[in-house]
Structure formats: structure tokens, C-alpha cells
């Protein structure tokens, strides 16, 4: 992890980089202990993880959303206007932001049982917003795009002008697969007779896809473990004087 330490100051005679590597290595080993069984070491690492990451999320949300999108354009100018009217011409507050602030504050109505139904307003607003957004998006990104990609000639011409039977066969299989898979998802009829047979073929296609998806992911997952092994071998072990004759990561 070359990015581990941007600064190389020292604490108690140890460089922050070395401390960082040790912290990371111990936490790494703590998590792996879970593979044997749940244990106090894993629990400590897990709770550190929860605390640190929840705070990280909160701080990032503060700097990237609250500060630039609400505090700076609305609250600070508003305060300026009220307490420092002499500076009023600096920036005018964006009053429309009072709406999301109001909706956001309504969420706190959950603390007051009598008015907790008010918290439904912001939820309804946000859910409606994304529901609306998803309708044209799904049509454009999935339905039209994938339909376009599926309308293939079953007997295409190859590069040399002759017929390309192999591609034609693949195209036929692709179209069949799409139709059969769709048939599997048909809900309002019994899967018997023709529909039953077609949807059965659909299930076969699904199984091929899932098998392939599984097999294709194995390499990526093993790579993740390789990454941790490399960290322990080439970054951590050297700090206790064990140098393995391998290529370093940085």
C-alpha cells in the first residue's frame, strides 16, 4: 500500500508509515480470525470498523453535501444578513434551499410521537423523485438499448461477403435465450405445455449464465486475497526484518 502514509513524521521514534503498516496488518489478521470462529479479536476489529466508517461517512457527507450545498449557499449568507446587515450585498441566500431544509427537519418529527407522521413527507418526496427518474431511465438504458442489441440477423454476411453460419447460429441462440428467459418470468399463466417447455429452456440459459458468472468471478476474488498476501509479505514482514526475495509493491 504505497499510499499508506503521505507524511513521514515520527511518533515515539517510529515513523507514521511503520505504525500505519502495523495497524493495517494487525487489523487484517484480526478479520481473518473470523474464518476460524467468532472471537474477541474479530469483535474489536469489527467495532472499530463500524465506528471509523460511520464517522468517515458522516464527515464526508458534511464536507461534500451539507457544507457546499446548504451551509454555504443558505445558512451563512442568512446569518450574515441578520447579524451583519452592513455586509448584506456580499451574497444573497438561496431561499429555495429552505424547502429541502424544511423537509429534512421534518425527519426529526420522529422524536415527537404525536407528529411523527410528518416524517413521511420527506420520504414520500425522495421516493417519488427516484421512482419518476427510474421510469424513462429504465426504458432508455435497458429496454431500448438491449432490444436494439438483440435484433440480429440469423444469417449475417461475413467480412468476405459470404454467409457467416457460425455467427448466425450464435445469434439464433442469443435470441432464443432471451425469449425463453422472458418466458420463465411470465407470472400470470401456469407453466405447462408450450410455456412450460419454453420456460424450462429459459431456466437452462439462466443456469449457464449463473455458472459462467460464478466461474468468471473466482479469479477476481482470489486476486483480492493475493492483494492482502502481498501486503503482508512485502510491506509488513520487512518491518520486522523479514525480506522475501520477491518483487516489492512499492
Amino acid at each position, binding site marked *: *500500500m*504505497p*499510499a499508506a502514509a503521505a507524511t513521514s513524521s515520527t511518533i515515539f521514534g517510529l515513523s507514521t508509515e511503520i505504525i500505519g503498516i502495523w495497524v493495517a496488518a494487525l487489523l487484517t489478521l484480526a478479520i481473518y480470525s473470523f*474464518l*476460524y470462529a467468532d472471537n474477541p479479536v474479530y469483535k474489536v476489529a469489527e467495532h472499530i470498523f463500524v465506528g471509523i466508517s460511520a464517522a468517515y461517512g458522516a464527515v464526508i457527507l458534511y464536507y461534500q453535501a451539507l457544507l457546499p450545498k446548504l451551509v454555504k449557499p443558505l445558512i451563512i449568507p442568512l446569518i450574515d444578513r441578520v447579524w451583519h446587515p452592513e455586509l448584506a450585498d456580499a451574497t444573497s441566500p438561496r431561499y429555495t434551499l429552505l424547502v429541502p431544509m424544511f423537509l429534512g427537519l421534518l425527519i426529526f418529527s420522529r422524536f415527537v410521537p404525536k407528529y411523527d407522521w410528518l416524517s413521511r413527507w420527506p420520504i414520500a418526496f425522495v421516493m417519488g423523485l427516484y421512482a419518476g427518474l427510474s421510469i424513462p431511465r429504465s426504458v432508455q438504458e435497458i429496454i431500448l438499448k438491449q432490444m436494439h442489441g438483440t435484433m440480429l440477423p440469423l444469417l449475417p454476411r461475413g467480412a468476405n461477403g459470404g454467409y457467416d453460419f457460425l455467427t448466425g447460429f450464435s445469434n439464433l441462440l442469443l435470441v432464443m435465450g432471451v425469449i425463453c428467459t422472458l418466458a420463465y418470468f411470465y407470472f400470470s399463466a401456469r407453466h405447462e405445455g408450450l410455456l412450460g417447455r419454453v420456460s424450462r429452456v429459459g431456466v437452462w440459459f439462466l443456469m449457464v449464465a449463473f455458472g459462467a458468472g460464478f466461474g*468468471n*468471478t*473466482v*479469479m*477476481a476474488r*482470489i*486476486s*483480492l*486475497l*493475493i*492483494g492482502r*498476501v*502481498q501486503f503482508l*509479505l512485502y510491506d509488513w514482514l520487512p518491518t520486522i526484518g523479514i525480506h*522475501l*526475495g*520477491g*518483487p*516489492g*509493491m*512499492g
Partner: protein
Amino acid sequence: MWEKLLFFDRRIIFVFIAIAVWVPFLTQLELPPGQTNPRTQALYDAIENLPPRTPVMVAFDYGPSGMPEVHPMAKALTRHILSRNLRLLGVALALTGPPMCQDAFSSVSQDLDKQEGVDWVNLGYKPQPVAVITQIGEDIRRAFPEDAQERAIDELPVMAGIHNYDDIGLVIDLATGNTPGAWIVYAHGPYKVKVAAGVTGVMATDYYPFLQTGQMIGMLNGLKGAAEYEELINHRDLGTLGMGSQSVAHLLIILFVTLGNVGYFAFTRRR
């Protein structure tokens, strides 16, 4: 006795997987990489055919989590590009990219005795991928007036005469996300610059169509792509070693699946 093959403690599998991954690193096991994928070869040939001092832009669009798969590619490509005496420009559309770029470029250039600012430069990170890609098409100075260390790029010899995609021989995107698509649409599309990519094994299938249509000239596919490339440039490194772990682990999983099935059939037949 067959039941044992059917239901053994999964922790035994965990131990075997750990051994399978550690041992190739401890023993420096190098397995032969097999035949080179034509997409890997195409990328190698494209770099091989560039005239000396042609700038090659490498985009670092991955972070620590993508390192195991993508970083070996970055190092192998860097080695090839610098040893061919081409100019190397690193950019990052991912926030976590610049340290990756710095590590790949500086470690390899020490080996090859190449100089920062003369042979290579790390231009750093800029947000909003599409805007950055488009700005480079107009003038790279609009997107990257300074490098990662805040030096004006006009003062760097490596940037001499580079204005936009017309001056760049090849763009290679090393990515764990969907940025290769953006490079194809917004850089190759309007500006006709050649684009190639190095992506994780899971992502690779998404880009086959672009290779078929020629919008992308070559692609490295996961750790295997990195190992193949290391073989092509004749410098075996982390990709080859990692591939050793991969092969052993894959075989091990298949072995376990086979054992499970043998146990299953023997068990059910006996019943």
C-alpha cells in the same frame, strides 16, 4: 467413508485456499503462461509500432481495492512504454488513481534509469471524467495545467509539443469501473485517438463488443492479461506470480467440487 467427502468442515477448505495462495509467493512458483490472448498481443503490437518519443497516455482509474489485478498491468505497461523510449503521461479520473500512477511510474523508471518530467509525468487527478476527457481533446492544458506536484506542465520537457489527442499515440485506461466506455465514447469517438484498456476479469466481458467493432484496439483481461504481458516483454513479475496462485486456487476449487460430487454419487448409490 463417502459421507466425509460430502460434509467436511469448511475451515479445511479455507486452510487449503490460504496455502494455495501463499505458497506460490513463498516459493516464487512461475507457471508457464500459456498462449497469449490476441487482445493482449494487439496492445503489445500497438505500443511496439509507435515511433520513438511518441506520447502514450495511461489513465489510472483504480484504487487500492483494484491493485491486485490491475497494478501488475500498470507496471508491465510502464516498463514496455519506457523501454521503447516513448513518453508516458499518467492521468487519473479516479480520486485514488494518482498514488497508483506514482508507484508504477517511479518504481519502473528507477530500474530503467528514466527521468520524471523528461520521460514520464504524473498529471494527477481531476474530477468529472467526461469533462476531463473532452477538455484533453481541446487542449490538455485546460484539463491539466499542472502536474500532480503542481509544476506547470509547460516547463516539463516531457510535455513539449503535446496539445491534444492528435499528438498522443495511444490512450490506455486501467480501470475497475466503467471509465473505458467514457474514453471510447468521448475520446475515440470525436477525436479518433486509439484507445486500449486493462480491466479486471469481471469487467472484461463488458468490453468485448468494443473490441469487435474496433473502437478499442486491445485489452488486458485481469491478472492473466498482466501475466501474458509480462511474458511478452520478458519480465516476469507480480502478474506471473499471482497467476501461479490463481492456477493453484482454481484447480483446488475444481478438485473440491469433484470430491464433493464423487462423495455425493457414491453416497446416494449406496443408499
